[in-house]
């Protein structure tokens, strides 16, 4: 697929964009906190991915791993540049509802998931930047400790400690919000 893209096959590129835009958008949204900023950041990430697509080596790992690694690095870099503060949360549930896709899930499940997503985001935004990063990478992105160590370049003990404190903090916040 990558070879097709590099040969100028727009359909192959469209397939990659469709397949990974949701994951990358979600990650961006968790870090930046608003849909507009997440949309811009996702677009920026895909632009960057396409310019470096010829650097992808199939023998070094799957395309999915490579893409998400590039995306994570770019999103975290962007988040650090922004001073580790999420953009002012201007999204309302109604504004976001406009973007929702009707998938195979029932409308009720979709609404529930959408509500939960917004609540989790609101709770995560209340965490300190260090705890938030580790929680997003561990509990939303489901990276291993070692992957987080490699990505953030901090000691494993610090990573574990931040994940632990982040979870306790997040649990308290969600309990106050009556989510759990």
């Amino acid at each position: 697929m990558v070879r097709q893209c590099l040969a100028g096959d727009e359909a192959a590129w469209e397939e990659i964009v469709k397949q990974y835009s949701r994951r990358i958008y979600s990650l961006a949204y968790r870090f930046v906190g608003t849909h507009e900023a997440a949309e811009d950041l996702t677009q920026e990430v895909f632009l960057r991915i396409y310019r470096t697509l010829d650097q992808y080596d199939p023998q070094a790992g799957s395309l999915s791993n490579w893409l998400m690694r590039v995306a994570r690095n770019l999103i975290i870099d962007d988040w650090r540049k922004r001073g580790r503060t999420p953009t002012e949360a201007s999204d309302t549930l109604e504004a976001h509802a406009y973007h929702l896709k009707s998938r195979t899930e029932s409308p009720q499940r979709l609404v529930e998931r959408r509500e939960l997503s917004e609540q989790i985001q609101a709770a995560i935004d209340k965490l300190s930047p260090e705890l938030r990063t580790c929680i997003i990478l561990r509990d939303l992105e489901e990276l291993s400790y070692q992957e987080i160590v490699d990505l953030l370049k901090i000691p494993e003990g610090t990573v574990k400690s931040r994940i632990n404190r982040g979870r306790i903090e997040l649990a308290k916040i969600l309990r106050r919000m009556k989510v759990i």
Partner: protein
Amino acid sequence: MNCEQFQDIVGEYADGTLTLPARARSAEHLMTCAACRRLLADVRATMAACRRAALVEPPDDLVSRILRATPAGSMMSCAVFDELILDYFEGYIPAGDYHVFEEHFQACPRCQRLLTSIRLARQLCHEARAVPVPEDLQRRIMRATVGIERIPAHRKWRAIVRRWWRERRAKIARTIGLIVTPEGVTAVLLSLATVGFLLVEVSDDMTLRGIYRQARLKIERVVAHSRSGALEERVIVSELRGMASRLNGVLQLGANLLVGSADRSRQPSSGALSGPEKKRGRSPRHRDAELQTRRGSPASRRAPQ
């Protein structure tokens, strides 16, 4: 384990990444502590909520927006761009590719730098003055390849003669070496002296044709006299003897000159003389006497009697 210690590892406990002893101590504490059980339940619930809410639905137009932002130009990889650079400078890029090439150039700082650098380098090469060629380089190349350089017409004959001489000088030197011995030089000089004598004494106009003409006349006169009986035999004999003695004198003079010059040329290199001659240690006077003997012999042998 107390509550504070458990709180430090509750995350790892939930992840299941604790060591077995730590996990056993934690489980023991949880058995007795309701607050920590509640904490663990909350942490697990939080993790589950995060997993459920991990994916956010992007806006409908996100994909189309991304595709619009990644036009054909940015789809070209830098490697493909690099391959087209040569064609770009040659002016051979087809119109369709050129469009993509240009868009990639606008979008990619790396390729902008590369192309600008190449353009600058080409310009510098073009502007650089040609290195002056040494004057005799062409001549040396021609000499080393075809053996003789291309030269103007007026110098051509001189070059041909030089080449002829270069090719044959060794052979000529060998031939001259054979001739330039005392015997060879003596033979040549005596021949020349004989011809000279005949020219002076016999020829009436100092030419070879004159020698032939006078010789024929004399023979005719001798034949005529002998027929008529008017000329006595002794007159003819005395005439021939006089000619012979004069010729002998000329030849001896030439031989003296020749042998004298040979002596002079041998004297400095006397060390190279043959062994027996050195051993004998003969005095110069003895040598002169021997030379006189030698000088006399060829002339006397050749002299017409």
